[in-house]
């Protein structure tokens, strides 16, 4: 665990250096408390923590993915929270947004790992493909799975951003040509927090990372390893069209009279009744709307296996607790997930053959 933490500045130092005023800082603390559903009495506690604790470094890596998580993240509704969080991340490593390129970027990654051993949070977007020794996703001449293992080795905790890192997502759909594999099946000895969704809602992402940075611990997780504060309710529970469901008023065809009246989309294949996420409360693109409000049913993108459940327009027939398909295996798997990241036994991954083209120069400076 972390030795030399005295070297690391506090959150407050970082914010001040970014030109954030005391007033804005206090506002940020209030926003954070509100976003996390904490009472106002927590505001001074958050402020105190930020003033005295060394900041938590973050390394953000990308595997097999489409970058939709980053895209979502950078348009979070609370510009202040986003700026602060982004500024903390930028201090360390993110290969989509950072300034450096090529070997400098790899050197920056190594340096960050070395400097903050045991102290940093590893944020993973996308997942490693394991077929052909990982050759379907090559970063700096090496399979991504190697970078992932390497960065995970000294991480304090891991955030699996989005459906790709959490569950595999569409690239893992049958026949899963590259054997795209969720992070928790490759890294089995670290605490992993899953933030599923394709992509996750921006405010959920900032909420989770702010909580972890502020309190230096994992938020309360549900049975699948998702933060309970955002994933404890079904879309259906808080859907503004719910009264129409209860009244038996359904859209029968696209853009029929019932669609214009905003009736329930259940018959159009909406997966809201079996999907745990915050879309119907937090909403999207700064709270403007969410898929059901745009007249399209929920596809359940934050649930495991949403991509292989038959047509996205089939009606949900099985309204049970455990997500879209509930059989004994699934329940067992979910239950195993509770115990945490330590148990996954099915990570029998073939040894990787040495990387073909190893990039070596480690230069510093841009």
């Amino acid at each position: 665990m972390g030795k030399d933490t005295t070297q690391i500045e506090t959150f407050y130092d970082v914010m001040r250096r970014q030109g954030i005023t005391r007033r804005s800082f206090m506002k940020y603390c209030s926003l954070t408390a509100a976003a996390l559903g904490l009472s106002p009495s927590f505001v001074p506690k958050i402020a105190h923590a930020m003033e005295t604790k060394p900041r938590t470094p973050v390394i953000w890596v990308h595997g097999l993915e489409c970058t939709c998580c980053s895209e979502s993240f950078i348009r979070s509704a609370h510009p202040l929270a986003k700026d602060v969080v982004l500024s903390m991340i930028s201090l360390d490593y993110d290969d989509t947004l950072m300034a450096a390129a090529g070997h400098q970027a790899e050197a920056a990654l190594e340096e960050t790992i070395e400097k903050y051993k045991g102290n940093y949070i590893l944020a993973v977007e996308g997942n490693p493909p394991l077929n052909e020794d990982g050759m379907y996703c090559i970063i700096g001449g090496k399979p991504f799975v190697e970078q992932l293992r390497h960065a995970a080795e000294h991480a304090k905790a891991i955030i699996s951003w989005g459906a790709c890192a959490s569950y595999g997502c569409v690239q893992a759909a049958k026949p899963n040509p590259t054997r795209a594999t969720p992070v928790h099946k490759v890294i089995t000895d670290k605490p992993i927090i899953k933030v599923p969704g394709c992509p996750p809602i921006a405010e959920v992402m900032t909420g989770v990372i702010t909580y972890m940075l502020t309190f230096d611990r994992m938020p309360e997780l549900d049975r699948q390893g998702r933060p309970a504060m955002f994933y404890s309710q079904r879309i259906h529970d808080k859907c503004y069209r719910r009264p129409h469901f209860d009244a038996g008023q359904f859209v029968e065809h696209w853009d029929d009279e019932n669609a214009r009246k905003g009736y329930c989309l259940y018959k159009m294949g909406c997966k809201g009744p079996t999907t745990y996420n915050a879309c119907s409360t937090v909403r999207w693109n700064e709270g403007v709307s969410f898929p059901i409000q745009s007249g399209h049913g929920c596809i359940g993108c934050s649930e495991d296996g949403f991509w292989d459940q038959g047509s996205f327009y089939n009606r949900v027939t099985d309204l049970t607790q455990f997500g879209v398909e509930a059989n004994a295996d699934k329940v067992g798997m979910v239950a195993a997930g509770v115990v945490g990241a330590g148990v996954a036994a099915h990570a029998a991954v073939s040894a990787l053959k040495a990387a073909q083209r190893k990039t070596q120069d480690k230069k510093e400076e841009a």
Partner: protein
Amino acid sequence: MTDATTLLVGPFNRVEGDLEIRLEVADGRVRAAYANSPLFRGFEMILQGKGPMDALTITPRICGICSISQSMAAAHALADLAQVSPAPEGAKVAQLLHMVENVSDHLMHFNLFFMPDFARPIYSDRPWFDRAVTRFTALKGSALKRATEARTQLMHIVGLLGGKWPHTLAIQPGGVTYAPTARDKVRIGADLAAFRSYLEEVVFGAPLEAFVDLTQIEQLSGWSSGDLALFLSISDDLSLDTSGIGAGKYLSFGAYPLPSGPLFQRGILCDGVAGLLDQRDIVEEIPSSWMLGADAHPSQGMTMPDEDMREDAYSWCKAPRLGGVPHETGALARQAIDGHPLAVALAREGSVRARVVGRLLELARSQIEMERLLASINVREPFMRQVKLPKEGAGVGMVEAARGALGHWIKVENGLISSYQIIAPTTWNFSPRDRHGVPGPLEAALVGASVRAGEDTPVSVQHIVRSFDPCMVCTVH
């Protein structure tokens, strides 16, 4: 002539996805370039055996930055399969959604991906360096914050009409699932007005119409306001008008088809001569790709990765050719093929500058078109038409993503997808060598780029690569 040395450049940051380029360098110049897309996911294989409508959900997830383009192409392919056209007002809403995404991409490219390279210390002796640093240093520059904010507000339109972005679900073969109200039109109008004032204050420093009215390259030298002027002075100083010269062959599938025809025309431009585009002339060649099978038109194509990654190939990307010839695609191609006089002149120049200015020209023109399109939407009309897909058949969807021509070719048997082939813009631009050994557009444009002594990530190469605005996740889906 000295012996060539080989330089491996990558991973590239600030591009979508992963990219690696091998350069042969001799006498301080690039002699040959080989572009490799080292990320493969196999979407075309995943789509086989699924219900055709699933393409609407699966294909957008190829790419989180141009997901609406994928969604549009899939919707067009399905509409073609069913031999229907979408409800006219629905088509307008879909095109508006698509334009917002494309415009956002152009804005992000300029501010987040392209300009930050000029804030590198290697340029610290240039007269414009301080301004470039203040405006465009990665993650910190003042321009970046404004651009991100402007885009966030513009994206409210997609939130409102599409429910969510990225990975919007609202676009369907028969139209869109959301029927906007008169009140929505007012809200969208306000978002568009805010975006116009951002563009006019910050990017162009002048009314958009003033820029759109330019007809000759020479007039650019008189442009003195906005970030555009900063770019133009950098470009003059670094001679970006003679850097990254392409082969002069462009194609566009035609952007934003409406009942009255596409807003930006379909066609080709070959050494300054305009022509018609026939998609049947497209062949994907695979001699340099880690793919098995044969060269084929995408309606007959297949995706079988060569797991041995054979020695004489070097990319997961296939090499699409039109009439046997590589073509460049993107905003410059689109605007030139649409006949805008400034773009036609820039296409002849074919440089880094031409691509960047072509993109900004499209940004300005698109804003004007979005305003017109919104005004023309009639909220009383239907926005969706019922579509029944046949159990057997084929369809093609051709659209223009921000980065250029995007095509989906679908075949359905027994009600399930039997074949789905996708050619993305960067598949065209970053294609490897074809069966005649002819390099792809980027590979050709890199030849002659200068490499300073000791540079291992040559900055001129960075400019040329980024001038194409690559989207590597789309390239090899």
